[in-house]
């Protein structure tokens, strides 16, 4: 299955765009990428979810891991573009406030 995400590393920020469905079948490969991102201790990570159609709890877990890992190394995470079903899930989990959605 093609990976539903794309990473761009710039000196000042890392951009992660996730699209399609982030779920129990696709989250494991994103989780590896997330470990790699956290290991670089990026000062700023921007997660673009405007292409994301569907998320399940495994997908949310992967994003929480990214969030905690980057914050734990004193970086910041901005989650942008969440819409439709993914936005509904973040709201249901009351993560929309923490994530500033």
């Amino acid at each position, binding site marked *: 299955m093609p990976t539903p995400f794309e990473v761009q590393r710039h000196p000042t920020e890392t951009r992660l765009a996730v699209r*399609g*469905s982030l*779920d*129990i*079948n696709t989250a494991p490969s994103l989780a590896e990428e997330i470990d790699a991102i956290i290991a670089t201790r990026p000062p700023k990570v921007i997660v673009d979810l405007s292409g994301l*159609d*569907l998320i*399940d*709890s*495994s997908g*949310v*877990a992967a994003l*929480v*891991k990214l*969030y*905690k890992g980057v*914050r734990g190394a004193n970086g910041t995470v901005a989650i942008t573009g969440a819409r*439709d*079903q993914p936005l*509904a*899930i973040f709201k*249901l*989990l*009351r*993560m929309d*406030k*923490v994530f500033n959605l």
Partner: protein
Amino acid sequence: MRAIVGNTMVPTIRLTVPGTLRYRAIAVRVVGEACRLVSSSTQRDPDDPVVHDVRDPFDTAVISAFMEIFNNIAIHAYKRTGGGVIDLAITPTERELVIEVRDHGHPFDLDDVTPLPNELDEDSLPEGGMGIHIAKTMLDEMTYEPGPPNLWRLRKRLSANQAAGARRS
């Protein structure tokens, strides 16, 4: 081999798939199309793919809940061994969708699941244990009877608004 629906008023769609994550997409497609039968009031683009149907709040709720229940059966009940099937009985009416999900995996006690904390801040963001909470909150009714077979019963009603739209169309 017998007609299951016959002359009952509300036809039921039945799907049996192996209880592994590989077959999840098939089950989600069927549930998505069944949602469409209930919520088809909503104007839809004819080439709007199923994955985009989750713009509809009814479909969003049902698919979100169902994905979690399916994941849990494959992972927890069948312990990722694929040692059995998942049976779905999906009944779409004009006003609601009822999904019965049966598996022959390990039963558990739904009441033992710890709820999510009420207040979330950065440090308490959960990395697991969200599935049951998502499913329960998204649905109007969610029951579980340990088996065999274990039986989940998921029910979602159209909101009053949506139901009115459906009757008009």
